[in-house]
C-alpha cells in the first residue's frame, strides 16, 4: 500500500509537517498591521500615538 501511492504519501507527510508548522508558530490568515520602531513615549503619552485603524462613526478603516 505504501509503495502503491508514493505521491499520496508525500502529500500526507508534507501536510502533516505544514500543519505542525502552522500550529507551532500560531500562523493565521488574519494579518494585523505590524509596526516597527515604536516610540518609547507611547507609554508616557498614549494619545500621541496615531493608530493605523480609525473609527468613522459607523465603520472603521485603516488610517493614514
Amino acid at each position: 500500500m505504501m509503495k502503491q501511492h508514493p505521491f499520496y504519501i508525500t502529500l500526507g507527510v508534507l501536510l502533516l509537517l505544514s500543519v505542525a508548522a502552522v500550529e507551532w508558530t500560531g500562523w493565521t490568515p488574519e494579518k494585523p498591521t505590524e509596526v516597527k520602531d515604536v516610540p518609547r513615549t507611547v507609554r508616557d503619552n498614549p494619545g500621541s500615538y496615531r493608530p493605523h485603524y480609525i473609527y468613522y462613526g459607523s465603520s472603521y478603516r485603516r488610517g493614514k
Partner: protein
Amino acid sequence: MTAPAGTCPNCGAEIVFRWSGAVQTTCPACRSILVRHDLNLEKVGVAADVPEAMSAIQLGTEGSFKKKAFTVVGRIIYKYELGHWNEWHIRFTDDTSGWLSDAQAEYAVTRASTQQIRAVPGVGEDVVIEKKIFKAMSVTKAAYAGVEGELPFEYWDKSEVSFTDLRGDGDTFATIDESESPPLVFVGEYEDFTELRLKNLREDVPTGAAPQTRSLSCASCGAAIILRTGEAAKTVACAACGAVMDASDAGLKILLQHQARLQHNVPQIALGRTGQLKGKRWTVIGYQVRGITVDGTDYEWREYLLWNPEAGFRYLTEYDGHWNDVNVVKGLPKEITSGARPAAEYLGTRFEHFQRAQVTTKFVLGEFPWEVRVGDKVWNDDYVAPPLMLSRESTPSEITWSLGTYVTPQLIQEAFKLETPLPRPVGVFANQPNPATATSGLGKLFVVFACLLMGMCAVRQATARNETAFSGGYRFNPATGDTAAFVTKVFDLKGHPSNAEVEIFTDLSNDNAFFSVALLPEGTGKGYELGREVSYYFGYEDGESWTEGGNGDRAVIADVPPGRYYLRIEPEHAGTTPVSYTVSVKRDVPRVWPFLAGLVPLMLPALFGFISKSSFEGRRWAESDYAPSGDDDDDDDDNDSE
C-alpha cells in the same frame, strides 16, 4: 522388476511382459489378444485395428509423474459421442501401475483405488473418495474401440461402458468406471503435457511444431476446408457456405446445410491465423457466436477456439470490444454463498455471482474437437473477480468450469499481428478491471493520516501553553470628551515564538463600539496593531427574535516573539452611554482548524478514488442479475477502454 516371457500361441512370436502384473497383452506380430494364466498364454481374440489418433504417446513412451518414472505398456481406446480418448496403461519404476488419460490434449494420471462406491453420483453430486470430496462433473457413455499392449485385467470383449468423471480440490481427478460391478474407482491428478516429460513419442504426430493438417472439400459447396487438428476434429463448418459437417465422417456428412447471417459473422481473427499467447503458439481453428436473451434483449458474443498441439485448447471471447482469454478449469471451484448471493472460490480467489442465463449457440465456423450444433443450449453462471471471470456451464450430463482473464484488444492485436485495429471496448464488462483500482488503498492511507492529525491535535491541546498573560477591565465614557487612549501594564509573553490572542468583551446592548488595540514591546522591536469593532444588536420582530453580532471579539496575532509587552487601547463609541469592557491576552493558544484544514486535501484524492470506483462498479453491476431496480443499459455509447 520382472520381465516374464512366453510365446504367442497363434504365431509363435516371443511375448515379453514389461510389467509383472500384466494379465492381458496383444501379440505385436499377429495382434492376437492374449490372456496370461501363470506362464501359459491363451488367445482370446484378435485386436481390432487401432483407430488413428493424434496422440504422440505410444507403447514404450517414458515419462514421469510426481518425480516417479513410468513407461507406457498398454492402451485402451474408447470412442464416445464427442470423439475418442486413450487410457494409457503405465508402469512405474516401483512396479506399480496406473493410467494416463489422454483426451483432447488434456492429461490425467490415475491409480486404481481400493475404495468401493455404494452409489454412483449423478452430475453435480458430491462423493467422498479416499477422504476427499469430489463432485461428479460428467457422465460419458463410451464404447470399447481397441486395445494394445499389456493391461492389468482382461479387457477385450467390452461393449458400452459408463464413466463418471469427478473433480476435487486443486488438480485432483477421479473416475468411476462402471465396466465392473461394483464400479472401479480411479483417483489421480491432471498434469500438463510438459510436466509429464515424455520421451520416445511418435515422430509422425506433432507435439508443438506445425499442426498436422488435412485438406478436404466442403460437402455442400465444394470449397476447400483445412482441418488443422487432424483426427481430433469432430465438427467443421465451411467458411464459404456455412454448412456444418461431421469432421469424423469420411464423406463429411452434412449436419446443417447452411447458417443464417453468414455475411454478418466474419471473425475478427481469421481461421488458421496463429498468434503467440502465454509463451505458446496458438492457431485459431474454430469460431462460434453464442448469445443469451435477457428481458427480451438479445446479447451475442464471439468465441474463438485456439489450439496448440501440446497445450490443447483455449478460447478467446469478445463482446463489444471486451476480450477474455479463457481456459477450461481442471480443478473444482467451490460454490458458496456470499450474503444472499451465490459465490465461488477457486485457487484462493473469491468470485461474486454476476449472471445466470441460458446460452444458445447461434453460429459456428471452422473445426471443433466436439460436436457443435447451432441451437445447442447450456445454462451458464458467471462469477467475477476482475480481471478474472469463472464460468460454470451445465447440461444434464456435464458441468464445465472455465476461467477467463480480461485482456485488452491491443494484446490480441499484437499477439495475432492483426492488420485492422480491433474496435475499442464499449461500456463496462463483467470482469473488466476497475481503472480506479489504482486508488484503492488511499482510503486506508487517509485514515492513517487522519489519525496522525488527530493525534497531533490532541498532543497540541494537551501541551500548548494556553496561558492568560494579561487581563484587565475598563470603562469608557464618551461623554467626558477626553481622549480614551491608554496603555496597560507590561506583561510577559513566554515560550517560543507563537500566537497571542487578544480578546475583548463588552457590555454593549443594541450598540456598537470600536477598539484600536496595539500590542507593543516594552523596549524596541516589532509591535502589532488591530482594529476591532464590537457590535451587538437584538430584537423581536414579526413574532421572531433576532440577534446580530456579539458583545465580544477576538483576534489572533501569529508568531509573536517572547518578551515583555503592553497594550495601547483606544476605544471609540458613537453613542453617549458608557461602555464597560475587558481586554485579555492569551499566549500560545491551541487551535483545531489547522488540523481540520489539513484533512481536506488528504481526503480529496481518496474521495475522488472512491467515487470513481463506485461509479464504475455501479455500471458493471447494472449489467448483472443484481442490478438495482430502475437501472437500464443506457451506457452502451460510452467508451471505456481499460
